[in-house]
């Protein structure tokens, strides 16, 4: 059975969790910053994955990695990250900068994903030893500098936050970002079924672990049939309810029962633990 995720928008998280969505994504375009909202919701839920959109371009990579690791700790292993790459003059003006050209943008996205992944592994699982005899709380050999140098920034590390429960946060992003090989979940927004089949095959060839189709829902009734048709082509879908949808309840009815969640988002999605 394919996985079903949901762009949360202004929908109710508790309804989404009860319905058995694998995870919700939280776009970073509302009044409440997506990472803060996800953290708040992490303590109102216990099984659903929470994936805020955080932009690589207009944030500090070190803060971004820390925030996501902390979300994973607060949710006990349910954090995902929708890779955002806003690249508009107005977004850059807020932090003092100018948009990046195509290749530079792709490189920046790669660098931020790479440094986040290195930072999430900068503390080994068993770094905290609490050895009363020697007086050592940490094993300093198990907490590492990352010494990352990218095209536009560098980070020494380690992360200030110990290894997140999942080891690696689930990294989710569009296949159009040009970094498909670095993604746990590639999102494909294709206008036709044939194009979806083609881009899905391409994303798999490029190394994405899972492929999700973007699906707009304005009429809940045909959702089940739509998902059945995608079985075998993609691993999951992300639903976007349009203004025409009469709330979440009819969509949930149409989907039918969902498989139970795992103890972490990686487990729910069948991704290897620890990344």
């Amino acid at each position, binding site marked *: 059975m394919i996985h079903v995720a949901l762009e949360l928008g202004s929908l109710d998280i508790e309804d989404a969790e009860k319905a058995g969505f694998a995870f919700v994504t939280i776009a970073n375009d509302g009044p*409440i910053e997506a990472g803060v*909202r996800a*953290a*708040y919701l992490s303590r109102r839920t216990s099984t659903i994955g929470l994936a805020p959109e955080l932009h690589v371009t207009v944030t500090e990579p070190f803060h971004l990695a820390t925030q996501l690791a902390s979300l994973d700790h607060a949710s006990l292993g349910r954090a995902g990250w929708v890779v955002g790459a806003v690249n508009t003059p107005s977004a850059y003006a*807020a932090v*003092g900068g100018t948009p990046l050209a195509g290749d530079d943008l792709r490189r920046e996205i790669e660098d931020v994903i790479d440094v986040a992944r290195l930072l999430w592994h900068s503390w080994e699982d068993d770094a905290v030893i609490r050895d009363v005899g020697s007086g050592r709380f940490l094993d*300093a050999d198990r907490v590492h500098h990352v010494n990352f140098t990218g095209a536009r920034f560098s980070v*020494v590390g380690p992360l*200030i936050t*110990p290894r997140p429960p999942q080891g690696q946060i689930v990294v989710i992003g569009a296949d159009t970002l040009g970094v498909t090989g670095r993604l746990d979940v590639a999102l494909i927004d294709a206008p036709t079924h044939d194009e979806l089949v083609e881009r899905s095959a391409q994303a798999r060839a490029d190394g994405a672990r899972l492929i999700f189709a973007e699906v707009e829902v304005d009429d809940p009734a045909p959702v089940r049939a739509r998902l059945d048709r995608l079985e075998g082509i993609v691993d999951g879908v992300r639903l976007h309810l349009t203004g025409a949808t009469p709330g979440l309840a009819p969509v949930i009815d149409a989907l039918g029962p969902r498989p139970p969640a795992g103890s972490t988002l990686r487990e729910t999605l069948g991704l290897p633990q620890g990344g």
Partner: protein
Amino acid sequence: MLHLGLFFTGVGPQLIWTAPDFADHTHIDTFVATAKTLERGLFDAFFLGEGLRVRENRGRVYDLDVAGRPDAITQLAALAAETTHLGLVATQNTTYNFPADLARRLASLDVVSGGRAGWNIVTTDNAWTGENFRHGGWLEHSRRYERADAFVTAARALWAGSRYAKHDDLIDIDAPPTVAARPVLFQAGDSPGGRDLAARHADVVFSANTDYDKAAAYATDLRARLAGYGRSPDAVRILPGAMVVLGDTPAEAAEKAEWIQREQTTGPRAIAFLEQYWGKDLSGYDPDGPLPDIEPAEGELDPSRGTIPIEFRTGKLERIASWRALGLSIRETVIQVTPRHNAFVGTPGQIADEWTRYHDDHVVDGFNILPQQLPGTIEDIVDKLVPELQERGLYRTAYTGTTLREHLELP
């Protein structure tokens, strides 16, 4: 009325991790349990510390103290869902953040918590911390509070609903307003620049002036500075950091304080403390023996332990000479010279009486407590000291408001 906060630093020698009942200080369950205990004790606020690089000693990750902490705003947003009244204060620095980004996250915390957010404004001057950031080490020490002032001015404008643009060598921003919010502003710096920032912007100062005489002098100084900015002398709450060691008898409290001090300054920690000053490997020295007989390395201290007050970062040769003159062992020397917040040691009644004097003389508005034991310090204060304060009419018996501003009786 006295106001109480709990300052959860998450790093450093203060927190004793060797106790068998030590609660895992990075686990979310520990934070949730702590927040709920504080709310039961009617605390004003739960403060999270921040430090943007893991502490090191001579180029290696420092392994003797607790280490590891969450992003403060993320953690407090999670705690907002677990609590209903407790103020949630994030320490966040103005050097290695983008003002528009941080202002938006703080406003978001304020909204999801229903008006319970606070921001403890700190600066980081060292380039060593900056090595984790895009613009590492760009800001000279002397200008860190100018940047902080520009940063806070921008944040306040964005929270108040204005677009804000400014472009100079300290700040580069052109951003739309955030959701409407008014986080309570805390300031902890004790330098003249820090005090001025407090007088200009802060709602609360988290000062290091805890001893009665220092607290009195600080209050006088701050109130004079407030007048200079046209603010009322009562516009700012003064909450110095404080350690509290409680015992059922004075002797028991004193014994516990002695134990805490020795746990906080173990032999290996004493050696590591001196290594900061010597700049050399001193692991061959006996902590119970005399100070090292070798000369220290050239140059001043590196900032990688992150805890050294600015006045300790220069003049190390004179400092070492003065330590030698004490004639104590390495460990006893370090216990003696380590800068630390004043500890209140005694029975709950004794400490409540002492705090009554601070309160009645209007020297402080409360205390920001630094725990040594998790969860012991917090449970003891809530269960034993709070009732004594309540009996003396010094402390609330129920929350009367829901926002942090209301708790602190701020406009």
